[in-house]
């Protein structure tokens, strides 16, 4: 068994696809109509054959309540790895992305948290090997 995909629950799949590709810089891998919604996944251009991120509709009534509670307390739904968090933070802010936590240095890792505009907070993390 291996992990090949995971997902975030988004309030609008088309908007999410734009944000995750045009702003974050992922690439669309699948976009297949499945009844009311689409099956959409994106991949990192650094690893196009790697783990896929699904942009799943948050249509279940409990999903919105859960997401709102997480966002209120600043809790990210998931985390992405970045090479240079300072540059990424600056780049995303210049594109209008709202950070609820600017980069905070914990010694072995620097993390920041932003709003994906689809009802989730997302953490980015840069590992900083001890020198």
């Amino acid at each position, binding site marked *: 068994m291996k992990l090949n995909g995971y997902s975030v629950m988004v309030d609008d799949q088309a908007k999410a696809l734009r944000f995750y590709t045009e702003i974050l810089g992922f690439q669309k891998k699948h976009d297949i109509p499945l009844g009311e919604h689409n099956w959409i996944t994106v991949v990192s251009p650094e690893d196009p054959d790697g783990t896929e991120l699904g942009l799943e509709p948050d249509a279940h009534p409990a999903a919105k309540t859960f997401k709102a509670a997480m966002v209120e307390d600043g809790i990210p739904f998931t985390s992405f790895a970045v090479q240079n968090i300072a540059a990424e933070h600056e780049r995303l802010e210049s594109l209008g992305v709202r950070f609820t*936590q600017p980069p905070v240095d*914990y010694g072995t890792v620097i993390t920041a948290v932003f709003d994906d505009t689809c009802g989730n907070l997302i953490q980015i993390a840069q590992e900083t090997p001890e020198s």
Partner: protein
Amino acid sequence: MDDLYRAIADPTRRTILDELVKRDGQSLFELCGRLTMNHGIGSSRQAISQHLEVLESAGLVKVKREGRYKFHWFNGEPLKSISKRWPAN
């Protein structure tokens, strides 16, 4: 006044204030991260949330909502009553 002394009597609550002085306006998530990573305080989010309520009732923390987010801000104003009561010089 009793609320104020009770609030600052607890070491975890004093550390929460330390971290807010370092960077004001933090989410619960960021505060918990800082307490764990910088101080080895492994209390649950619920426990930290309760500490924040005590600090808030003493007036030392202000909670402000910004849209869907909730941030915590340090307010040192109530501490003036201590030095007013017992002047340092």
